[in-house]
């Protein structure tokens, strides 16, 4: 949606390769979230950044997944040694419970 830009929109990668997914939110939002939407499953929480606090990584499925947020703005989700089960749409969101969360259009990752 307006306010969150994700790139690339589609990514096809070979099994075992590393990928980086980018989220570029509109400025002024201290909270940023990553979710994953797999076929046949609902959206699942991955990680949450709030300002300069340590991120909440409790949703990351394995240590192959990591994320960082530089300068309180752009965030990158990195998946190392991709597996076929990593194929999904990865969504970035900003905002919070008071005014609702705004999601980007996502990156569709396909691991072949």
């Amino acid at each position, binding site marked *: *949606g307006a306010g*969150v830009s994700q790139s690339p929109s589609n990514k096809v990668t070979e099994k075992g390769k590393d990928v980086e997914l980018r989220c570029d939110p509109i400025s002024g939002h201290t*909270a940023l*979230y990553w*979710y994953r939407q797999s076929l046949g*499953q*609902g*959206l*699942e*929480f991955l990680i*949450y950044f*709030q300002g300069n606090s340590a991120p*909440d990584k*409790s*949703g990351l499925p394995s240590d192959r997944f990591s994320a960082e947020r530089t300068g309180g703005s752009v965030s990158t989700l990195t998946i190392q040694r991709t597996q076929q089960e990593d194929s999904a749409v990865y*969504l970035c*969101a900003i905002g*919070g*419970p008071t005014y*609702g*969360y*705004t*999601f*980007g*259009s*996502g990156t569709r990752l396909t691991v072949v």
Partner: protein
Amino acid sequence: EDQVTQSPEALRLQEGESSSLNCSYTVSGLRGLFWYRQDPGKGPEFLFTLYSAGEEKEKERLKATLTKKESFLHITAPKPEDSATYLCADFLAGNKLTFGGGTRVLVKP
């Protein structure tokens, strides 16, 4: 464990045929219940937040209601442009949303 269940999984409606979607959640201490609309190839689009039992919110042909254990999204006299997947999510603490599996709605002219 927090679980959010949506029913039905899919709904086919004729234009003008009103219906309701259900979202049930298991935990107590709910801090918010969200409804989103998702079109193919796009991220979820925010519709409503409900905070307490008895609360209702409306937007065009959509009306969301909340009880202690479930929420309903009523679609009144739907049009084909209301075709989408409707997602609900609850919010406890820790700024995480727990989503249901969604209801795919198809409105035929």
